């Protein structure tokens, strides 16, 4: 299963976007992460790294034995990371480089991309690449 991480400068924005995307996400793991860790606006690479691990199934839902018990569907097929602006992109980039999980950043608008990614991730044959591609297709969404 492909996991999704939503990164925003605002923790509440990340949570809200994850909430919207979760409507379409089935049992896909969506991890919101944001804020400077002190209640302010910003992002922290370590926190993003933890969210990537959680979305990959590493720490969120129990240990490896649990994952094995639940069968193949819970094994991680990687993580697609949605980001908002500027330094959030850089911090996500650092987190991806330092993470052991297979993670990629989608070059997409964060909310529309997260919704697209959530839908794509419910496909049983979804891969990191197919989910990223669908997230990036959100760049072409026209609203009027």
């Amino acid at each position, binding site marked *: 299963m492909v996991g999704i991480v939503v990164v925003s400068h605002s923790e509440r924005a990340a949570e809200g976007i994850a909430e919207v995307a979760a409507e379409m996400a089935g049992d896909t793991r969506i991890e919101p992460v944001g804020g400077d860790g002190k209640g302010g606006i910003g992002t*922290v*690479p*370590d926190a993003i790294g933890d969210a990537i691990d959680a979305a990959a199934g590493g720490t969120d839902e129990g240990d490896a034995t649990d994952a094995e018990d639940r069968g193949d569907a819970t094994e991680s097929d990687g993580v697609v990371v949605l980001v908002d602006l*500027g*330094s959030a992109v*850089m911090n996500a*980039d*650092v987190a991806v480089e*330092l993470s052991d999980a297979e993670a990629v950043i989608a070059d997409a608008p964060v909310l529309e991309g997260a919704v697209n990614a959530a839908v794509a991730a419910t496909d049983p044959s979804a891969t990191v690449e197919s989910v990223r591609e669908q997230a990036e297709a959100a760049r072409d969404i026209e609203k009027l």
Partner: protein
Amino acid sequence: MTDDGAAVVAAVDAVAERIEAERDHLTRLDSAIGDADHGGNMARGWAEAADAARDLNDPDAETVAKTVGKTLMAEVGGAAGPLFGGSLVFAAGELDEGVTPETAVAFAETYLEKVEDRGDARVGDQTMVDALTPAVHTFKKSIEVDDVEPIEALAKAVDAAERGVAFTVPIRARKGRASYLGWRSVGHQDPGATSALIILEELLAVAAERLDVDVPETDAASPTIPDDDPEEASDDPAAASEDD
């Protein structure tokens, strides 16, 4: 503690102290074109980094650099965290055999490359790249081509960085928050480039102090006049010098 490790700890200390002293200056620069947090963020981050470096038990240079990078990454907000800190974490690996002229050049090149890639910035974008690029190029050439003493190479690099900082003033920002200002960013000195210069100045001061020499008076201008047709110049500065 290895000599190199101790030297890097001393350098980090000096940087932290100087950044604290320049906190208001950096904040003023940032308030003109950004969100006025650069001075405070850098001061807090470097103070934490200096504490973390001092707490290490008998570290080598690589360990100190990596620890400082990780601390900056976690403590300095905004883009400065991943740019100053994240780049340091990756470039630290070049110091695994200690600090020599060769490893220092490799470190500097890797650091610049990481900053450019991460920030997607090039010379002329009104960023710290404008200070670092001339500094790293001048340092590399001074070591590899001109074969000057490392302390003089570092002094030339600082001079080059100073010119780079001056170069950020009359150009338009194309990266970072200042780029949202468009043409209004023209006429302002980039805070990130200024911090990069401050860090280099302190590295030079600490190096001179530990070598017990005066800081050489020098400028970045080349002591050598190239014979080659610039069109044919190689990317490898050492290759170009073989014809001398």
